[in-house]
């Protein structure tokens, strides 16, 4: 983890380094432009009117610079800031410096307001592991260091919370890392939004989503001078989520495939990877099936087998085939794709010759044509005829028209390009089908746009116009988003400030390109020109100049010898366009005879590729132009066919509609150098890109408002020192305190606004406050240091004084002794002293007497005590006697009582005996009574008996 932290967090220890802070404040550091380094630091020594004398920080050289060229340096507090919108001095130099500082410390991601700027590190960084993903999961943007994951997570959470579709727009030059970052976005989403919770068992869909990339890269990427794996197309990947936030499907749309790469490559560049994968990786069986040959036999591979260091085409072929497997694209489709790729190569090997006595082309050797036909399922004879003498509609009739060598060659090349493009489009469609098979309903989506950034070459062609037009639109989207968000923030904070919609800034340029009519834009004029039989690239330019000559965003080349045909002032700068071949490029004509043949191919795959052939601009239409209008009837009706410009405009407009309905997130990729070197940053190259990708434009917009915002509490904490006594002691509401502080600071009312929770400042105001704060702190510190020094000095002084006093005591005694030592009597005394016991008798006597006295006293005391005690004893004895007498009397009384008691006891005895006698007599009497009773009863019974007998007798 700590390893990764190095590449995420800025070194916090350095940020608050007071030394730097002091340096900045005292030296008045600024940035001045430099030819080689972009900008260099210097300190202002002197100001004279419009000019300044500046001493360069590293060399110490003194130079005079115009004041306007000087850019202020930010206080060290802002060193390596994560969000450059926080910089108080917002200027090119500071932005560049911050990015450079961070890049050199391994921090490749930096925010700039809404943007996330990323500079290609050209090396592996340990910041894309699953641990890191977990770290970023569910965190707010400001809680974590800048990262593409933070942007992605933010988009994902907003989608879940607000139920709003999201988009992540990655743009940048080739080699800046757009595609890599896009992959990281997908990786992140596949990880956090997978419905399969255990990490090992990633869902099939997520796997396929990740595998779509290798396939697209194999077919759509190639090696360029700048980039070994350069995407030669733009893409918009739409990942759909259900209400629970799980991925339910995805869809890929591609833009502007550079199909000419299939037939021609610049020095040190390669065609699309798949050519090399296939030629190196295919087994023997496949080689014969696909009619593959050796690299050097193919004319379309201009430079033969160009290899990429560290990349094994053979392995990548296997990998690509595996990816097809995971995508569940079956074998026969795969072969179909590869056959088309092989056929494209074979088309390049068809060679034509001019016939001896006419202009007609002939094909002396048809081996290549046979192979093409074998691969694409066509009849060779039909194919050859379609190429050499196609049927062309003239008026109402079809005639066979022989082609010249150039025409035939052009037709074959066009065919090769078209085949490759159609194959690529089919592939994308097929991938989409694979990614969209779940039945679950998508509730919202995150779209990821990976498209080339602004291109400014010396001379620019139709392709550049398309890409620059795209970027102009994307920048407009950004400006508008920023405008809306700023507006919201200002409203939320209750600040009165009317912003201009910066999106409108770009409208004139966009109109210049895309407007339909009154006046028609460049694309419309180009289309229109395509329908004129006699039109040429030149006549097109004339028309543009005529219609748009007054547009402020349009410029005619100043000098006649200038090779450019016209210039367009894009937001990123002036771009020179050369209109050569634009009509052709726009129409993209194709031999419709061959197209029809392909449409009817016996190979199912091929015929599907060429399913729609009705809207192709046929060769004959173009022929009209080059022949100088020989066939008057070839004027094409508008709208029948679709030009490249039209198609692209439509595609772009769809994309923009989609994007406008999403909440956009902007990622800007930057290439640091053209040598693919790690740790090297070419300042001018980066500056150029910052200009092109809108970062500087964003900053320009920022500066118009109040870019620096500080919450009340922080403002108070940091700057209260500048306004002593402004805030009364005790509690005070944050806003009220800030109001008081600002009042005490006496700031111009246009420099700040006070919102509900923050103070807003114009650019640069904070730098000023920071400077004052530094000066103030330094003053206080110096004053305090003086007190401290005083404290230390006084402590030391006290100690020294005490030492001095002690010293003096010792000194005095020593001196006394020294004097005494030599006094004769003293010496005598010291000698005699041990012998002189007598001398002490008196003392002893005295002591004895004292002792005696004391003893006497003690005795006296003892006697007194004795008397006292004796008296006490007598008293006690008397008491004792009295008590004894009393006791005697009591005892006598007791004896008397005892006697009485014994008398009474004898009496009691006597009486008890009498009682006894009487009791026995009672018993006797009672016995007699019972006896008599019994007798009586007996007699009574007898009586009753007798009476009964008697009555009976009577009766």
């Amino acid at each position, binding site marked *: 983890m700590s390893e990764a932290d190095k590449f995420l967090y800025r070194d916090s220890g350095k940020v608050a380094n007071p030394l730097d802070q002091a340096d900045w404040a005292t030296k008045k550091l600024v940035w001045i432009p430099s030819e080689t380094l972009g900008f260099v630091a210097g300190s202002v020594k002197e100001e004279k009117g419009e000019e300044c004398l500046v001493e360069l920080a590293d060399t110490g050289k003194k130079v005079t610079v115009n004041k306007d060229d000087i850019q202020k340096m930010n206080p060290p507090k802002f060193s390596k800031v994560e969000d450059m919108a926080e910089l108080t001095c917002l200027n090119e130099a500071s932005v560049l410096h911050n990015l450079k500082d961070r890049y050199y410390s391994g921090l490749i991601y930096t925010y700039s307001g809404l943007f996330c700027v990323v500079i290609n590190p050209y090396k592996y960084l340990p910041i894309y592991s699953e641990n890191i993903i977990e770290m970023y999961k569910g965190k707010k943007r400001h809680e974590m260091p800048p990262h593409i994951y933070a942007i992605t997570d933010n988009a994902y959470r907003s989608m879940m919370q607000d139920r709003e579709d999201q988009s992540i727009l990655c743009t940048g030059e080739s080699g800046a890392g757009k595609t890599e970052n896009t992959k990281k976005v997908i990786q992140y989403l596949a990880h956090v939004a997978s419905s399969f919770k255990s990490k090992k068992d990633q869902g099939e869909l997520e796997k396929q989503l990740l595998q779509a990339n290798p396939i697209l890269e194999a077919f759509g990427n190639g090696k360029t001078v700048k980039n070994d794996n350069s995407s030669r197309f733009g893409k918009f990947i739409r990942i759909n989520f259900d209400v629970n936030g799980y991925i339910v499907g995805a869809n890929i749309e591609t833009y502007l495939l550079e199909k000419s790469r299939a037939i021609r490559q610049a020095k040190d560049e390669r065609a699309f990877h798949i050519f090399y994968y296939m030629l190196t990786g295919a087994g023997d069986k496949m080689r014969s099936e696909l009619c593959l040959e050796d690299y050097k036999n193919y004319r379309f591979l201009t430079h033969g087998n160009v290899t990429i260091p560290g990349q094994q085409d053979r392995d990548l072929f296997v990998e690509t085939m595996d990816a097809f497997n995971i995508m569940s694209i079956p074998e026969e489709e795969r072969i179909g794709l590869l056959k088309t790729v092989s056929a494209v190569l074979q088309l390049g090997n068809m060679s034509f010759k001019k016939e001896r006595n006419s202009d007609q082309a002939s094909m002396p050797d048809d081996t290549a044509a046979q192979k093409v036909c074998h691969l694409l399922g066509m009849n060779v004879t039909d194919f050859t005829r379609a190429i050499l003498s196609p049927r062309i509609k003239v008026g109402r009739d079809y005639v066979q028209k022989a082609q010249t060598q150039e025409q035939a060659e052009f037709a074959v090349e066009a065919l090769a390009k078209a085949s490759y493009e159609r194959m690529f489009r089919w592939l994308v469609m097929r991938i989409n089908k694979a990614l969209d098979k779940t039945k679950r309903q998508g509730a919202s989506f995150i779209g990821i746009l990976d498209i080339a950034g602004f291109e400014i070459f010396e001379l620019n062609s139709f392709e550049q116009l398309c890409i620059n037009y795209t970027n102009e639109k994307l920048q407009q989207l950004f400006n508008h988003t920023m405008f809306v968000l700023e507006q919201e923030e200002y409203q939320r904070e209750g600040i009165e400030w009317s912003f201009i919609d910066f999106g409108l800034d770009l409208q004139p340029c966009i109109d210049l390109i895309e407007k339909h009519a009154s006046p028609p834009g460049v694309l419309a004029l180009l289309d229109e020109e395509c329908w004129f039989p006699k039109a040429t690239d030149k006549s097109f330019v004339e028309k543009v100049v005529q219609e748009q000559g007054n547009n402020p965003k349009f410029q005619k080349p100043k000098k006649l010898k200038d090779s450019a045909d016209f210039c367009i002032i894009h937001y990123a700068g002036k771009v020179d366009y050369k209109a050569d071949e634009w009509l052709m490029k726009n129409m993209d004509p194709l031999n419709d005879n061959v197209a029809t043949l392909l449409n009817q191919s016996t190979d199912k795959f091929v015929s599907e590729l060429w399913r729609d052939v009705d809207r192709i601009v046929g060769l004959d239409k173009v022929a009209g132009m080059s022949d100088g209008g020989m066939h008057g009837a070839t004027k094409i009706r508008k709208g029948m066919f679709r030009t490249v410009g039209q198609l692209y405009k439509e595609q772009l407009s769809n994309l923009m509609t989609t994007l406008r309905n999403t909440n956009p997130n902007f990622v800007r990729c930057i290439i640091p150098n053209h040598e693919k070197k790690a740790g090297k940053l070419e300042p001018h190259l980066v500056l150029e890109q910052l200009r092109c990708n809108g970062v500087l434009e964003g900053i320009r917009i920022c500066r118009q408002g109040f870019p620096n915002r500080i919450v009340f509490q922080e403002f108070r904490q940091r700057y209260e020192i500048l306004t002593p006594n402004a805030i009364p002691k005790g509690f005070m509401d944050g806003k009220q305190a800030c109001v008081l502080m600002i009042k005490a600071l006496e700031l111009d009312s246009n420099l700040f606004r006070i919102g509900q929770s923050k103070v807003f400042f114009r650019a640069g105001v904070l730098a000023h406050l920071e400077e004052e704060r530094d000066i103030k702190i330094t003053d206080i510190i110096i004053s305090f240091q003086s007190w401290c020094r005083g404290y230390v*000095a006084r402590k030391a*002084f006290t100690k020294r004084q005490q030492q001095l006093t002690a010293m003096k005591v010792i000194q005095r005694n020593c001196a006394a002794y020294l004097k005494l030592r030599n006094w004769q009597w003293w010496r005598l005394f010291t000698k005699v002293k041990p012998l002189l016991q007598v001398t002490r008798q008196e003392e002893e006597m005295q002591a004895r007497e004292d002792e005696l006295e004391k003893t006497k006293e003690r005795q006296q005391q003892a006697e007194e005590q004795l008397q006292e005690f004796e008296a006490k004893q007598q008293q006690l004895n008397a008491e004792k006697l009295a008590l004894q007498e009393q006791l005697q009397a009591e005892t006598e009384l007791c004896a008397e009582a005892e006697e009485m008691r014994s008398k009474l006891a004898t009496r009691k005895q006597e009486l008890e005996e009498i009682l006894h006698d009487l009791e026995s007599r009672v018993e006797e009497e009672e016995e007699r009574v019972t006896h008599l009773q019994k007798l009586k009863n007996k007699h009574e019974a007898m009586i009753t008996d007798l009476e009964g007998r008697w009555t009976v007798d009577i009766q």
Partner: protein
Amino acid sequence: MAPKKDAKAAPARKPSLQSAAPAPAPEPDVVAAPPALDLSKVKVEFTPDQHEDYKEAFGLFDRVGDSKVAYNQVADIMRALGQNPTNKEVRKVLGNPSDEDMAAKRLEFEAFLPMLQHIVNDPNKGTFDDYVEGLRVFDKEGNGTVMGAELRIVLGTLGEKMSEAEIDGLMQGQEDENGSINFEAFVKHIMSI
């Protein structure tokens, strides 16, 4: 003997001081030096007792025995006598000498007195509150303490940088067991001596 704090008691005569006219710099080789001070205009107003005490203190710093002290000791004497001048002020009253002169040149008591008087007349005006607020800037936790290590760096790298030895003498026994310092108490302590 207690350190002399009573020097402040000497009647201050600021107005006369501030009007001290800038005299031509005695050492023209010193570049961009602030205008030198004309000490002859400073009226020395110490009492005889103070005079006595100061002389005694002054003598304590004489390590050679010529009844003079080195330039670089002057600041310490003034501090010992209860003043808290900045190094810059001391240099100013000394006529902005070079570093070599600070070590090599010596000053006698009679020349020292007006310098002391000048410092006494314009004392360090920093207050307890100023310092507490100043140190609060380095209070990362917002709990009224700063780390001793941090304070050492601040005092050793900012302003008139203090030496290791000075800082050691200052911080002795001030840090608690966690190495932090309650800066209000610290400032109070520093200002009490």
